């Protein structure tokens, strides 16, 4: 990797200040995407600001009808959290399927969603469960957070503090992993929430997206059969050696039906 200056601030303000002062600063949360990127010399930030010792970014807690997960909470903590497992088992199971155990021991929810990898799992949870993202400046609705390929609604230097997931009536996440990287080729979160049915798809497009036709069909009849004939357009879906757009479109249907079946119990 290229040389950079490493910072380990003790407060959110100091982190923001370090970022602001840097020529090209990058935040490091768990580092599980950033460090591989740096090792491959695909990025050359002047400064890396590690949030590890910033207080207030940890912890999983119940707040009313929501589960609030601190930005620096690791995937393994979410997967093991009794609070999460009781309230939103789909979220625990999603976290338990990210990367591998060592990635889950370091990688964080904040790092994952800020990176906005089109094949990451968490975006499906943020959008599919209708979450809101709290930053050091504001609150962003989950539906508005992901704006494109590796793009989010965050402003320059804005730091995610926590993610709040409303507890759904029922939900499930099913993914079809890339056989090599084990990222999602297609991952679908289906949730029956207070604000309606949500179907969010990660891995298939530039960014996580919802499938309105499925949501409508499921609102009337929450069963796999209800969406059996809902076709997903392959236009604008990703293509790579592991999956064509056509195959991805097909998998969206299969994963969605399996998620519905799992959520319906």
């Amino acid at each position, binding site marked *: 990797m290229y040389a950079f200056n490493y910072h380990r601030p003790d407060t959110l303000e100091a982190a923001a200040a370090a970022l602001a002062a840097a020529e090209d600063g990058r935040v490091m949360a768990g580092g599980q995407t950033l460090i591989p990127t740096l090792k491959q010399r695909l990025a050359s930030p002047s400064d890396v600001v590690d949030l590890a010792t910033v207080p207030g970014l940890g912890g999983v807690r119940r707040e009313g009808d929501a589960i609030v997960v601190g930005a620096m909470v690791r995937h393994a903590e979410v997967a093991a959290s009794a609070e999460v497992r009781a309230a939103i088992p789909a979220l625990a199971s999603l976290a338990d399927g990210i990367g591998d155990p060592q990635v889950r021991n370091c990688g964080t929810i904040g790092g994952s969603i800020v990176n906005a990898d089109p094949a990451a799992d968490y975006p499906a949870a943020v959008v599919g469960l209708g979450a809101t993202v709290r930053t050091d400046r504001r609150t962003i609705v989950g539906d508005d957070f992901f704006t494109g390929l590796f793009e989010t609604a965050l402003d320059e230097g804005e730091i995610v503090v926590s993610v709040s997931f409303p507890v759904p009536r029922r939900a499930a996440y099913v993914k079809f992993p890339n056989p*090599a990287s084990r990222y999602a080729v297609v991952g679908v979160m289906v949730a029956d929430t207070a604000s309606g049915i949500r179907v969010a798809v990660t891995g298939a497009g530039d960014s996580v997206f919802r499938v309105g036709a499925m949501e409508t069909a499921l609102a009337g009849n929450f069963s796999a059969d209800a969406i059996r004939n809902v076709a997903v357009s392959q236009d604008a879906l990703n293509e790579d050696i592991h999956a064509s757009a056509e195959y991805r479109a097909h998998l969206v249907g299969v994963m969605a039906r399996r998620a519905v079946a799992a959520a319906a119990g």
Partner: protein
Amino acid sequence: MAENGIGASVPRTEDHRFLTGTGSYTDDSNLPHQTYAAFVRSTHAHATVALDTSAAAAAPGVVAVLTGTDLAGDQVGSLICGWVVTGKDGEPHKAPPHPALAADTVRHVGDAMAIVVAESARAARDAAELVKVDYTPLPAVVSMRDALAEGAPQIHAEAPGNLCYDWEIGDRAATDEAFGRARHVARLDLVNNRLIPNAMEPRAAIGDYNPATGDYTLRLTSQNPHIHRLVLAAFVQIAPEHKLHVIAPDVGGGFGSKIFIYQEETAVLWAAGKIGRPVKWTADRSESFVADAHGRDHETHVELALDEGGRFLGLRVETRANMGAYLSTFASCVPSYLYGTLLQGQYTTEAIYCEVKAVFTNTTPVDALRGAGRPEATYLIERIVDQAAHDMGIDPAELRRRNFIPADAFPYPTKVALEYDSGNYGLALDRALELADYNGFAARRAESEAKGRLRGIGLSAYIEACGIAPSQVVGSLGAGVGLWESGGIRFNPTGNVLVYTGSHSHGQGHETTFAQLVSDYLGVPFENIEVVHGDTEKTPFGMGTYGSRSLAVGGSALVKAMDKIIAKGRKIAAFSLEASEEDIEFSGGDFKVAGTDRSMNIAEVAFSAYVPHNYPLDELEPGLEETGFYDPANFTFPAGTHVCEVEVDPETGTTEIVHWVAVDDFGNVINPMIVEGQVHGGVAHGVGQALLEGCAYDADGQLVTGSFMDYTMPRADDLPDLTVETTCTPCPHNPLGVKGCGEAGAIAAPAAVMNAITHALGTGAIDMPATPQAVWRALNQ
């Protein structure tokens, strides 16, 4: 059976250091005043290049930046191919120059152009990026079809039409005649997918030069340190053999990829001489992907002619084999003598004809990878047999049984130059079917169908030629070396033993197996035996480890050395016990005077040999140390049947292997635990080829599967527990009766998986790797 002798599953001696993190792999060593190398590699598949190294040379910590021009100026020789294959036209294959650093033309992505030597690895890497390369792109040919097309861009002036050779084996006329008599002809077009070896330890090398003596030392990841020394001395000519010391310390897997003499170790050794300091290079995995020789990569049309009873009359094979951009060290023999000669399989096929075009493309060179030619042969035979079974409505097991070479027909001369020495194919098949509950398959399929799953069962009755190889045979076929092996036994005065072998262990467990052999044979306690390998200054010249040869050839060499030890010991005992040599019997480590209770243990004999105070020196030499060289009379022929059962999810195309049975005939077995482990690993490699691993280039010659992010390695959850058994027909021509086990799994597995999948899918129109997408497409065509 002795506790640690032949036939015992002795835990491995080498494991303690590996388990405690105290092994010594190449990258674990550092030498005083060491420098670090990074390579500047081509990002184009085909281009002429001009390099400006001035900025790199001026960068902090840089010691030297050396290019292909510097290399040519020092008259460093080309890398070589050590086996000259002669084509149909009687001409030798085309082996264009392959410089360790390309001077003006690059021919594949990753082709090395310059070596940057610096005070740290980071400084070397930083500076390598400062070498300015001016590329003038040339048209690249990536596929074999394009390379052979009329008017295709030429990769080497020396190889018109990008053809390395057009080779044949077998009897064309007899095969045509057999097809004329056929009741049915089965046909298939098959791709044997290109694989990237990916031993877990990346390649590494540390070159060192001593200006006081003119001695060079190369410590590297090698399966055959003596071959590295020979090639670098005799052909590349960096130093004469006696001035070059090659050490292959602990090596983290090879699978063939660490046989070859590559650009990097050559450049590192030469650079060490230039700068007079040690130079170390360790590959990043990304470099391994483009710079380690790849494997397989065949396209084949195969036809099998059968009579009305399903007997195999003729086999016709037409193959294109990809050599990549240059001819790697043993590349030429893989799709010819290690491939065409295996097309008899386990069957009595009456006539066989095979032709192979070896083709240059602008891709990474291709060479031997676990199995090397034999997996490709087995794959096409076992696929076409299943296709024929399907076409003719005959059970695949029954069709095989009808065509097996009978157990009483050995030695069996094949139609493709080999003579099989021993085997019992029906026995292995029957046992495999029993273990796989072949007869219960229909019920299991029904259960799967009830769950909406497809189920299939596939067989692979493979054969391989191992114990490579009789020097006379390979010499007559163009090999530049003999393929014997050496073994040495040195008794120390205190009675313990050093065992020297020219073979090399990089996971196979020689330190244990060879010690078991010596312990059993000489009656020396296992713990008093140390196996020494991997160092050209410690061991006698030897050919190294590949082709499942170490025990069959290297172990046999040790037997020859031990026979000499016993003969010498008998003389010493006869003298010491005042008996005649003829009356001395050796057993269990004791030399005994027949019919008496007078005896001497071999440790006492050794002590006496080094303290010869009263020896009759004109009759008896002091010392107890002997070396044996063993050149096999024939190849060995491990064979067996593997059965794979799969369940396919038709909605996603995902294949799950639900059961695996391997029944292999390896002849005699020294350490069953190690043999089973070799089978497990081979099967995983073959399953990887069949389901997961597919090297892909884009149309410009960029490697699309250039990291573990895109190239799928088998993981623990891709595989089931494996049921492994052996049968035994001892090899009749080596003293141990052993055949070799290292490659069997990789040879057998791909066909077993694919036959199971085609059985599940009801279509043979699918190639490896049978990824979920490929299976889904096959189901939805």
